[in-house]
């Protein structure tokens, strides 16, 4: 609920939400000028977990940067590594076998489901419900087990290579993924009944935290935040990459612009991701997972390359400026939550603190990804 504010001079106080605060899921700090429970002005302070991945990208050779990308967003790491390998492949002109691209798409989508599941749990926990988090983690654990069996790690994957993959998927993975899909669909129904239909939940989110389409455009918001504002934008559809044109899936769009719309977009995205996984497993072609001539030394020709991918949080862009050397001359990471978060300061003005934090939860923040 946001109401008109009549501030008497000198009657506000400053509240530091963070850098250590349960609602910020990490080390984010928001300096809020408060009038009672109402926020008069907010200023986000970043940089508490800034690690300068961009400089590391300039100092290391292209393959050495691979593990860095999964440290940006630890929940949906594969989407980011996918962007990176695609960017370098575009720059260096490396061909990728079809099977590798299919496996990439399957694993990215599974990772997206895992990321959304964790967001779902954490978001409901922001609103005070603890149990859905545990249910979500149970389902997520299945995905992590599957991905661990293939990639070798559970969270910060380093699975994709320039030109292909680290290793192939096996029948166990395919069987596990096929068994997981109906299980997940059942769970989604459970979440709908337990959380989405709940009156308390609905009252807390409906018409709360409005982010309009125009505001999204001015701030460059992408992903579920933009789709919750009625913008039909998904890089997988708008600027198809990898093998996504081969799949039949929908982009959920809601026009309410409130926190509930953003919540619903993500819940439906999980279902769409499952559809992609299902189709990917069906269409999975046989063949190699690395090109016949494995690229040994990667030295993209001088130039400026950009690649955008749709990660769980929005449009992730990576710009590589090459001078022909084995290190990138400039390595820019455009992180989606950075733009999504930048509108928080304006959007939360005049809101009550609990609504503002619910809205912050609906933005799906992963702080290491904002700070890079």
């Amino acid at each position, binding site marked *: *609920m946001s109401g008109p504010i009549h501030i008497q001079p000198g009657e506000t*106080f400053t*509240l530091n939400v963070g850098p250590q*605060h*349960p*609602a910020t899921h990490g080390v984010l700090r928001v300096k809020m000028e*408060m009038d*009672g*429970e109402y926020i008069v002005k907010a200023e986000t302070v970043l940089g508490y977990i800034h690690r300068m991945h961009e400089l590391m990208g300039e100092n290391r050779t292209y393959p050495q940067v691979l593990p860095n990308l999964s440290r940006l967003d630890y929940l949906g790491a594969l989407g980011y590594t996918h962007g990176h390998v695609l960017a370098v492949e575009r720059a260096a002109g490396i061909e990728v076998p079809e099977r590798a691209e299919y496996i990439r798409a399957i694993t990215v989508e599974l990772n997206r489901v895992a990321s959304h599941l964790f967001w779902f749990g954490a978001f*409901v*926990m*922001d*609103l*005070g*419900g*603890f*149990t859905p988090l*545990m*249910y979500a983690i*149970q389902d997520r654990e299945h995905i992590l087990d599957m991905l661990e069996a293939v990639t070798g790690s559970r969270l910060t994957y380093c699975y994709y290579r320039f030109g292909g993959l680290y290793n192939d998927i096996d029948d166990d993975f395919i069987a596990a993924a096929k068994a997981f899909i109906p299980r997940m669909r059942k769970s989604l129904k459970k979440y709908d009944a*337990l*959380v989405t239909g*709940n009156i*308390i*939940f609905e*009252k*807390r989110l409906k018409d709360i935290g409005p982010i309009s389409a125009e505001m999204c455009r001015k701030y460059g918001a992408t992903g579920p935040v933009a789709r919750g504002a009625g913008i039909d934008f998904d890089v997988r559809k708008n600027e198809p990459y990898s093998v996504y044109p081969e799949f039949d899936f929908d982009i959920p769009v809601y026009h309410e612009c409130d926190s509930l719309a953003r919540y619903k977009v993500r819940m439906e995205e999980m279902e769409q991701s499952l559809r992609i996984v299902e189709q990917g497993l069906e269409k999975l072609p046989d063949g190699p997972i690395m090109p016949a001539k494995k690229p040994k030394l990667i030295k993209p020709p001088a130039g400026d390359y950009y690649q955008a991918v749709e990660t769980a949080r929005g449009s992730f862009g990576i710009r590589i400026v090459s001078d022909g050397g084995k290190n990138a001359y400039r390595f820019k990471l455009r992180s989606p939550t950075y733009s999504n978060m930048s509108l928080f300061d304006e959007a939360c003005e005049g809101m*009550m*603190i*609990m*609504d503002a*934090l619910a809205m912050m939860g609906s933005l799906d923040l992963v702080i290491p990804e904002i700070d890079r």
Partner: protein
Amino acid sequence: MSLTILNVIIAVVIAIGFAALNAAYLVWAERRGAGRIQRRPGPNVNGPLGLLQPLADGIKLMTKQLVIPGGADKALFMVAPVLAMAPAIISFVTIPFSESIVAHSMNIGVLMIFAFASLSGFSILLAGWSSRNKYGMMASVRAVSQNISYEVPMLITVITIVMMTGTMDLKELVAAQSGGIWNWNLIPSLSSPLMPVAFLIFFICSLAETNRAPFDLGEAESELVAGFHTEYGSMGFGLFFMGEYANIVIGASLITILFLGGWGCPLGLFPGVWWFLLKIYMLIFSFIWIRWTFPRTTIYGLLNLSWKILIPISLFNLLLTAGLLKVF
């Protein structure tokens, strides 16, 4: 005379013991229950089924240093946790567990319990205010507005029942419901057709009065860190914690006495303390169950619920019952 005093002292000691034991073991029950709901075992390392966990927690809390933040009002800061625990224990004195097990029966028992229950709002206000923490301050302001708005429908509902039975003595309230489930206040009768609704209102209000989820706005951890007890550690926190659970027992006992026939059996057979305990623990289980199912409400949602839904309906119930009592 002296014998009566001795009786009362023994009874009070037993009441304190019961309250403390309940407070300690309800924490265990809550954690085990939450664990089961979330498909994990809960505390299971200390002792069989983790039954020694409360003991371990207690020792840990007692041996910790009590940190008083700089700038805090020391006296009030120390008083607040005591004020959270003491009224809860005192309220136990008047609660009749059965026909004979009652520390001190008095003819205005209902009034006394509500008088002491209002004090818990004070403890939160003092704790939040004296600890000189912005989160604590906001939490205490919230908690007070919550306590004020939920006492109204709660008391209106109690007035309805007092009107029906014509007494404020808890023992007599139970006696009026003896004989079986059909005599309980929960079951609608010709003169009080809306009693299940009144039960629901009272149940919601006791959740809100005891600051339980989904109405735990005073400690809303995702926005106010830990609310009014942000600055409390060691036994100060322990007392708040125990006070919360003691209050839950009081709330459950009151619901049992007012609506569920106290120590009476649903079929009118073998009335006794076991029925009373069974009923309050079932109610406490539902408190735990609700806490681990629902998200938290907002402060304005909470006030809207009270002023726009609970109070009008309970007032309507009061008027309807008063009218029908005249008719039948």
